[in-house]
């Protein structure tokens, strides 16, 4: 309300009404209105034009005029208590009416720049409050300037009655106290009641009026006619609103211008019996009264007073007169009057100040303020400031004002002060909040809960989500408690819930808040039954890290398989799905894929589980119990909630320790086809509060759709599933798969395929991605242990009745991938399972990662899915075990044999490795050094089946982290075969598995990429072993674990394949010198001793050669390096110990081969004779036939050349100097010359 209007409306002259009981009764009985009520609506005149001249000579016209009417009985100030009580009622009524608890959002309003003064209760309060202050001791404002006496027209003697009426009338306090002169303007009104229906009564009344006029003055007496209506509700004037607007609330005990009790309202409403004629008569009367009597009276008074003031200039009693005077001038809209009033008031105020009449002084000051306002002066009153936009000052004034006030008033003032702060530029939001909180506290203290709530809510709007944790905590705490008291349990729950994430608070507070919240939830549940799920902040869910797991056409057997992108698997699965090769996709495919993506829909199969991985965290220091943790879904059929015929929901329960973090997979199993959407998660916190969090559906951004992220990842965020009818489903279990294997280990893991779906399946195919993993063509040897499987190959019947076999034993694809297919006729019924042995043979230390994928088809026709795929990825750590380095050199004492040396290193830190078998495949044979002949002995055997080969048991244990060397003889292919007794623990080389790995190893080693060659082909035709081709060796070993209970586990068996072991230097023609090593000769008789030697030559290549032998080429020869050495001392004692001679220890009968293995020795034993550091003095002469020519030495053939050496003294000679040169005419005239091997001969003096 505009303050100027307010002043002109409220600060208007008062007319005291004194009515006789009869008149009151006549008025109240039928209309429910007192006489005052009847008059009030017509106390406003706006079409006047009354000239007035007060001070000075200029007259002005009053155009508008207001009168206030009060019954004289009610013109007193109510008691403080009654007034406060009443005001409280006013405020709460107003608050309820205006829905105070629906507080505005201050910040939003500020942004829009439309902060509304949404405090109607304040205006109501202010209005009523001012009223309760009326008729105060120092208050002359509401002092009557006129008195209206009302009599019933039926009064017998109106003139006397008027006199009695005035005398008996209760006077306002100031008049009683005698401060005010009793002589005020009197006016007389006779009320004629038509409802009495007395004949001619109105005429009588007019007569009485005339008599009254005669005695009291014609202009001051009037007659008004009322109750001329019938009282019928149908004929009322409809002025009810008009009457009501002027009726104000009654204060208990009366006072402040209103009666203590109001008359009862008639059935037809207020003013039921009033007709428009009645109303007109009243308004006409009032206008007459005002224009003819009141205004001239006032004019005279003001003039008189002014005169008095200017004359006396001082005097205590002047106050009232002045006020009266002011009143009239305030009513006039003309400015000069205000100025006159102002000057007079100033004068007065100084008088009062001197007189120390403080109360009166205050009153004058107040009026001074008002007058100043009207004249546009300046002052610091709050209202005034507000009007002028000086909100800051207003706030300050109100803040100052509130301190000494009682709660309600203080609260209201604070609230206003707070609101003013919003109008300051920039808005003082924080101060506003602070004031509001104070106001809220005061409101609460005086029981205005609604307003308190409203104040707090507005503040909450300022702080919510701003992370001022303590402030928010306080606000929610108060709001929650108040809502609970007010019975708004749901709001209480909301507020208490908002307090829950209070990680900054100490533990006992956290526990308290949680308890408080749960209690509120329980109360709310008790009051309203089941509560809707709340957006509980506990536990905190990280929905960004949510992943969805589901199985559509593709089933991932383990999490590791999911880590690989779709493209990776597509490539692997290309052999199953010839049409779906990524490289073959056309634009048509692309279009359909995009459509699918646009649908944002995943595929799932009825009866199979969907899962969502969620990360839960407990931010509190209090343990949380979560029960019934489950997914919220919506099925096409409308089903939702818990498990039903359409969906089975698997609930989880867990407890989160303080600060704990957990990843949970929530599962759900659709049971019928249809569209299923995952909506969110639901849980029951600590047994009472039902929490729920909805998933937000994120739009797939453009960047994601063409990013490097796998398609699978994107699909993991799509929450809608199209559920297909039940399908078969293959599950795989690799039971016995250890996480660690040794390099070269042969491990067999049973592969368990099981149909867990609802339909039979068929046409299983499998693809293994890694050459180190292999599948047996049949599953008969599942029961036996690995060793038995490997060894039992030969003894096993070709096919046992119980076993099944693959239709295709295994196609080897590029990059070592293997494709297996089971017979299409084989059907795996639901629940049925299939076991198959899977062989693992890791060959490089590090880790072995292999992928397996299975393809299968439902045996019936299922809409939407023709086949399914199962994917499995396994990673196994591979530890270094046995490192074998072969080297082959020529055996010095045989033209055929070679010497095989194996340097074996055990990489295991704790366990020794026992070597159990050395096999040589192909036509090469191996024998231990102890064997004299080439044909082995009891512990070596000859493979006589396909591939052939020899095996022997070196019986050596390699201690952890040691190296040793083993020596064996190796026989070239041409040698004859021998018989060997078969032992159970031999691993046959022809074993399919061994053979496979051998082949694969060779392929990977050679880097050969073979395309589509079946293993069968490879097995059937082992590569021919030409003479130049080296030997393929296989070393089998066993890890001897030293832990207790190792016996329980089957031994860990390993195989190292050594491919194509060749001689370090290829010698086309091998030679060897035979002869007696000790010759006795009597030098006394004969000075020259002839030693006969035989040089054996062998052509090792497969082409004929021509060989030329030349002995005794001189030292000067450039090609022959004749370094014949001479040892002076006869007898071996003279020989230096280190000069161990070649070939002597090797092959010596009786020395077991194992003895030769020198533990820890890394160096190669001295095989070449160190030439003694003596000058080469040839003490021998080659004689006889020193040159022999063998024109044609056939391939593999041996030839002998006899040679003679003449020695001239006893001693030990190293005979060298035989040069052999060869030419292979067929091999591009390959030509070379080599010095023959030295030969040691000891010549002794014969006795």
């Amino acid at each position: 309300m505009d303050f100027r209007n307010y002043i002109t409306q409220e600060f208007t002259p008062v007319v005291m009404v004194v009515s006789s009981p009869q008149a009151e009764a006549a008025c109240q009985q039928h209309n429910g209105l007192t006489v005052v009520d009847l008059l009030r609506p017509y106390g406003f005149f706006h079409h006047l034009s009354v000239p007035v001249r007060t001070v000075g000579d200029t007259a002005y016209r009053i155009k508008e005029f207001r009168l206030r009417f009060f019954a004289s009985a009610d013109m007193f100030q109510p008691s403080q208590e009654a007034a406060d009580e009443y005001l409280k009622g006013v405020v709460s009524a107003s608050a309820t009416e205006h829905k105070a608890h629906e507080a505005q959002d201050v910040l939003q309003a500020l942004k829009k720049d439309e902060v509304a003064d949404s405090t109607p209760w304040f205006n109501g309060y202010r209005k009523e409050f001012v009223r309760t202050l009326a008729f105060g001791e120092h208050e002359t404002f509401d002092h009557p300037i006129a008195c209206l006496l009302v009599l019933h027209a039926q009064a017998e003697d109106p003139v006397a009655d008027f006199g009695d009426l005035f005398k008996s009338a209760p006077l306002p306090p100031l008049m009683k106290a005698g401060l005010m002169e009793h002589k005020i303007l009197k006016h007389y009104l006779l009320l004629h009641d038509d409802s009495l229906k007395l004949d001619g009564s109105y005429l009588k009344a007019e007569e009485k009026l005339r008599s009254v006029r005669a005695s009291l003055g014609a202009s001051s007496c009037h007659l008004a006619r009322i109750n001329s209506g019938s009282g019928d509700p149908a004929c009322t004037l409809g002025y009810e609103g008009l009457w009501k607007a002027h009726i104000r609330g009654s204060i208990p005990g009366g006072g402040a211008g209103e009666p203590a009790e109001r008359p009862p309202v008639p059935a037809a409403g207020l003013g039921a019996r009033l007709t428009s004629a009645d109303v007109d008569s009243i308004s006409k009367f009032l206008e007459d009264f005002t224009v003819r009597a009141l205004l001239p009276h006032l004019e005279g008074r003001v003039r008189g007073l002014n005169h008095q003031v200017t004359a006396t200039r001082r005097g205590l009693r002047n106050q009232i007169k002045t006020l009266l005077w002011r009143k009239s001038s305030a009513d006039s809209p003309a400015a000069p009057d205000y100025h006159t009033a102002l000057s007079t008031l100033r004068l007065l105020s100084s008088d009062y100040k001197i007189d120390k009449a403080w109360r009166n002084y205050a009153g004058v000051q107040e009026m001074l303020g008002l007058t100043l306002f009207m004249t546009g002066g300046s002052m610091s009153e709050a209202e005034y400031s507000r009007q002028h936009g000086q909100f800051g000052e207003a706030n300050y004034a109100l803040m100052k004002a509130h301190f000494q006030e009682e709660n309600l008033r203080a609260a209201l003032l604070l609230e206003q002060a707070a609101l003013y702060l919003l109008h300051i530029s920039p808005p003082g939001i924080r101060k506003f909040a602070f004031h509001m909180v104070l106001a809220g506290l005061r409101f609460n203290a005086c029981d205005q809960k609604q307003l308190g709530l409203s104040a707090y809510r507005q503040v909450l709007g300022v702080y919510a989500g701003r992370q001022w944790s303590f402030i928010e905590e306080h606000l929610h705490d108060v709001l929650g408690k108040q809502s609970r008291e007010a019975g708004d349990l749901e709001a209480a729950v909301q507020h208490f819930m908002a307090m829950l994430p209070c990680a900054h608070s100490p533990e006992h507070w956290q526990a308290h808040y949680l308890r408080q919240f749960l209690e509120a939830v329980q109360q709310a549940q008790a009051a309203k039954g089941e509560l809707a799920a709340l957006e509980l902040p506990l536990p905190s869910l990280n929905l960004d890290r949510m992943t969805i797991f589901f199985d559509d056409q593709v089933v991932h057997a383990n999490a590791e398989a999911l880590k690989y992108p779709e493209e990776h698997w597509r490539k692997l699965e290309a052999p199953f799905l010839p049409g779906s090769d990524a490289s073959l996709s056309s634009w048509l495919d692309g279009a359909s894929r995009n459509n699918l993506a646009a649908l944002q829909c995943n595929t799932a199969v009825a009866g199979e589980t969907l899962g969502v991985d969620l990360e839960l965290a407990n931010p509190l220091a209090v343990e949380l119990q979560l029960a019934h943790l489950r997914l919220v879904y919506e099925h096409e059929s409308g089903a939702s909630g818990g498990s039903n015929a359409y969906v089975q929901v698997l609930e989880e329960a867990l407890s989160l320790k303080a600060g704990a973090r957990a990843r949970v997979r929530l599962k759900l199993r659709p049971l019928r086809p249809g569209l299923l959407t995952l909506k969110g998660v639901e849980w029951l916190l600590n047994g009472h509060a039902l929490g729920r969090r909805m998933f937000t559906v994120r739009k797939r951004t453009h960047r994601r759709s063409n990013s490097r992220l796998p398609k699978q990842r994107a699909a993991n965020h799509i929450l809608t599933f199209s559920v297909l009818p039940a399908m078969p489903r293959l599950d795989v279990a690799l039971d016995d798969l250890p996480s660690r294997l040794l390099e070269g280990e042969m491990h067999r893991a049973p592969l368990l395929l099981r149909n867990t779906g609802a339909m039979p399946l068929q046409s299983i195919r499998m693809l293994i991605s890694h050459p180190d993993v292999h599948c047996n063509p049949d599953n008969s040897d599942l029961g036996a242990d690995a060793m038995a499987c490997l060894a039992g190959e030969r003894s096993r019947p070709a096919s046992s009745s119980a076993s099944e076999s693959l239709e295709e034993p295994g196609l080897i694809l590029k990059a070592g991938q293997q494709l297996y297919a089971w017979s299409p006729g084989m059907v795996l019924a639901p629940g049925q399972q299939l076991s198959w042995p899977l062989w693992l043979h890791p060959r490089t230390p590090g880790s072995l990662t292999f992928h397996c994928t299975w393809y299968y088809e439902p045996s019936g026709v299922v809409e939407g899915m023709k086949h399914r795929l199962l994917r499995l990825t396994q990673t196994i750590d591979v530890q270094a075990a046995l490192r074998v380095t072969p080297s082959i050199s020529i055996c010095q004492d045989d033209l055929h044999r070679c010497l095989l040396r194996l340097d074996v290193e055990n990489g295991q830190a704790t366990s020794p490795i026992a070597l159990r078998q050395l096999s040589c495949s192909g036509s090469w044979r191996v024998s231990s050094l102890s064997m004299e002949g080439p044909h082995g002995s009891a512990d070596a055997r000859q493979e006589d089946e396909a591939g052939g080969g020899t095996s022997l048991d070196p019986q050596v244990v390699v201690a952890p982290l040691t190296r040793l060397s083993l020596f064996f003889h190796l026989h070239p292919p041409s040698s004859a075969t021998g018989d060997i007794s078969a032992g159970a623990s031999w691993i046959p080389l022809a074993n399919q598995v061994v053979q496979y790995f051998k082949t694969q190893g060779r392929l990977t080693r050679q880097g050969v990429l073979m395309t589509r060659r079946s293993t069968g082909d490879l097995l059937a035709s082992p590569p021919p072993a030409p003479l130049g081709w080296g030997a393929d060796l296989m070393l089998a070993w066993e890890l001897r674990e030293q832990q207790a209970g190792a016996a329980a586990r089957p031994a860990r068996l390993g195989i190292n394949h050594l491919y194509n072991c060749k001689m370090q230097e290829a010698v086309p023609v091998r030679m060897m010198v035979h002869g007696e090593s000790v010759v006795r000769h009597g030098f006394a008789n004969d000075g020259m001793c002839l030693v006969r030697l035989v040089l054996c030559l062998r052509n090792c290549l497969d082409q004929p050669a021509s060989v030329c032998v030349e002995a005794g080429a001189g030292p000067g020869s450039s090609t022959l390096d004749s370094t014949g050495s001479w040892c002076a001392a006869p007898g071996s004692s003279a020989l230096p110990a280190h000069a161990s001679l070649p070939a002597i220890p090797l092959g010596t009968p009786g020395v077991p081969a194992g003895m030769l293995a020198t533990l820890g020795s890394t160096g190669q034993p001295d095989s070449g004779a160190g030439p003694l550091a003596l000058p080469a003095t040839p003490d021998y002469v080659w004689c006889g036939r020193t040159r022999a020519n063998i024109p044609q030495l056939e391939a593999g053939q041996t030839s002998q050349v006899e040679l003679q050496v003449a020695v001239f003294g006893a001693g030990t000679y190293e005979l060298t100097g035989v040069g052999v040169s060869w030419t292979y005419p067929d091999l591009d005239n390959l030509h070379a010359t080599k010095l023959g091997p030295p030969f040691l001969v000891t010549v002794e003096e014969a006795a």
Partner: protein
Amino acid sequence: MIVCAAVIGQANNPLYLETFQPGSDDDALKFHYIVHCSLDAVDEKVAMPKKSPADTADPYLGMLYPTEDYKVYGYISNTKMKFILVLDEPVAREDDMRMIFKRFHTAYVDAVSNPFYTGNTPITSPSFDASVRAIVSTPV
């Protein structure tokens, strides 16, 4: 000695508020209050008219207001990020304070340069916390 450091966001929301006084649990509440109140002082200082048009605003706001036990200093960046430090004794030289705030600001810039940090959210980076602690423990 600095007993409390705070970073307040553009919407006057606390992004970082840490107290460095070995004391009771009430500290957090107390300093929340002090920092919150200091924002009014910041607003006032920012709203103060420039002395001359060419005057560039100094990010360092100086002492915002003294309480009985503490002195509150403020600093405002060009992006209206507020840095508040509460000291239990006044600094000897204003320039020291200026330097401390510069370092504080730099630490903040480093923290929000993290591409994984979302603007206007509480700073939880341990390295930021560590650098603030370093600034606090070695004031000058």
